[in-house]
């Protein structure tokens, strides 16, 4: 590093740019054991879901009626359900539904809600007031009730489930994207962009968006946990993806109906849901603490 000049102007050019807030947060989260355990849980479940076709011992829909309601152990590691289907294989395949529905729903909510929040905050004035009023109304519905009604009215299938869960999460994303936009649009670099004749679209997406991604991403991790919970709850009520496709909520519901004879049917999928939500919450918490300016210097 002997090439670094003593001239402050040159030194400023040579010094590497400070790491982005997102990178700094990731670095900090990595040193937090809770976050790492959470990440490990999530990765294991993700691996199980992705590898399900190769690692699941049986076909999740195969019925072995002679061996129905087998307790855990033996040929079927986690036992069989009332149709003699292997619980472990159904859990692995069910992880695919839980993860894909929640991820797509949160991605949709993040893009739509984030765009609404940024545009609303950027335009400001009465438009902003109106949009935020609409978001407040949307927020006043309990998410489970809103999801319940939307799925019931549209019909229970994979896409409608995603739409329903996304709808419950749009308002919080709009709020989290709007707040920093209000502050950012007063900053000199936005004004400079306007003076250079950049379009509003370019300013919003090229100059404001990169500055709010870390907040929105942290929110997304925390809401992913909620989305998994809502998906499982809807499936438990009977408004999830239709049988025979295995879903964790649906498996818990089937198990609940046989709770006196075969309690493990409800317990294993219940533990799976708990672990995934717990893992996501642990990761989300760690990321939030790492990005929270109030806690940054602790």
């Amino acid at each position, binding site marked *: 590093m002997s090439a670094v000049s003593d001239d402050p102007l040159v030194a400023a050019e040579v010094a590497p740019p400070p790491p982005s807030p997102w990178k700094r947060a990731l670095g900090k989260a990595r040193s937090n054991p809770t976050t790492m355990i959470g990440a490990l849980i999530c990765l294991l479940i993700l691996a199980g879901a992705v590898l399900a076709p190769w690692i699941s011992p049986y076909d999740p829909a195969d019925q072995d009626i002679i061996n129905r309601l087998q307790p855990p152990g033996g040929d079927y590691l986690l036992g069989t359900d009332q149709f003699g289907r292997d619980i472990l294989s159904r859990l692995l395949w069910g992880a695919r539904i839980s993860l894909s529905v929640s991820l797509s729903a949160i991605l949709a909510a993040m893009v739509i809600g984030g765009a609404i929040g940024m545009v609303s905050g950027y335009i400001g004035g009465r438009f902003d007031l109106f949009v935020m009023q609409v978001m407040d109304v949307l927020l006043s519905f309990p998410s489970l009730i809103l999801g*319940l009604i939307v799925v019931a009215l549209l019909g229970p299938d994979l896409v409608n489930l995603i739409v329903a869960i996304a709808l419950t999460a749009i308002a919080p994303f709009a709020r989290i994207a709007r707040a920093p936009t209000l502050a950012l649009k007063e900053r000199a670099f936005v004004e400079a962009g306007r003076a250079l004749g950049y379009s509003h679209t370019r300013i919003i997406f090229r100059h404001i968006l990169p500055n709010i991604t870390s907040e929105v991403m942290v929110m997304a991790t925390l809401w992913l946990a909620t989305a998994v919970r809502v998906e499982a709850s809807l499936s438990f009520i009977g408004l999830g993806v239709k049988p025979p496709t295995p879903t964790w909520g649906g498996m818990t519901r089937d198990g609940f109906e046989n709770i006196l004879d075969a309690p493990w049917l409800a317990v294993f999928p219940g533990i799976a849901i708990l672990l995934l939500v717990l893992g996501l919450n642990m990761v989300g918490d760690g990321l939030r603490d790492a990005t929270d300016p109030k806690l940054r210097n602790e």
Partner: protein
Amino acid sequence: MFFFFVRRLLAAVPTLLAVLTLVFVIVRIVPGDPALVILGDQATPEAAAALRQRLGLDRPLWEQYVSFIGNALTGDFGTSLVTGRPVLDEVAAVLPHTIDLTVASMIFGVATGVPLGIWAALHRNRAVDVAARILSLFGLSFPVFVSGIFALLLFSLHWRLFPVIGSANLDDLPDRLHKLVLPTVTLGLIMAAYITRVTRSAMLASLSEDYIRTARAKGVPWRRVVWVHGLRNASLPIVTVVGLYVGILLGNSVLTEIVFNRPGLGKIIVGALNQRDYTMLQGLMVIYCFLIVVVNAVTDLLYGVLDPRVQAA
């Protein structure tokens, strides 16, 4: 104070109107003819036309909207398509069960969350604090139906401490309370966990303020400093969370009612969804939102009581 109350209640009116409008829109943008959805595909055109007329769906949209808002504001939500009884009567019959459960869970959440949060804040980064944080992380991660099933398996089926069937006789108080225990703990768990967290961080902030040092310097007993000076100033975020969570409690009560087989709003809403009871559903959505708007208004009023500075703003 009085004007603050009036102003806050008036401010809830536009929100309520907006919510009603949203319910009206949601029910109408659903694809398909509601009459055919209710009657099934095999319905004769005459039967469908008769039902449309009975529901008022043959009238112009603006007329439907005006009569919907007018009826809702006077408490008339129509009659259930399945039972033929007024929606409000159906709701009134089960509302005590839902209110029992929601209020008991709220009390459970506050009664466990606030002391645990304070305790954790007073022992920051020590074993108690770490335990409280881990417990609250678990509490936040339990879907209501999973904790309900686990509670049922352990306390009702294994140890036989509580009944499996949760439907209680409302006139028999000991029975009513006994059957309320498991559903309350199940439903209140998430709230208790969240309140623990919020109380902890709010207390950490308030205990580092100058007025706490002043109070200690003039010899106020430590217990009083924590519970009066500290907690009062930490109470706004706690009240906010309680207010927010009442909505979540109402939503999650659907699951608790299914697991513990209790009557309530949640049971009715699932029944109405399965039987496509269109008027019931519309009425229930309005009632749910009405409850939430009222809770939000009460939360704001409490801000004014707890912190007089809010009134001036």
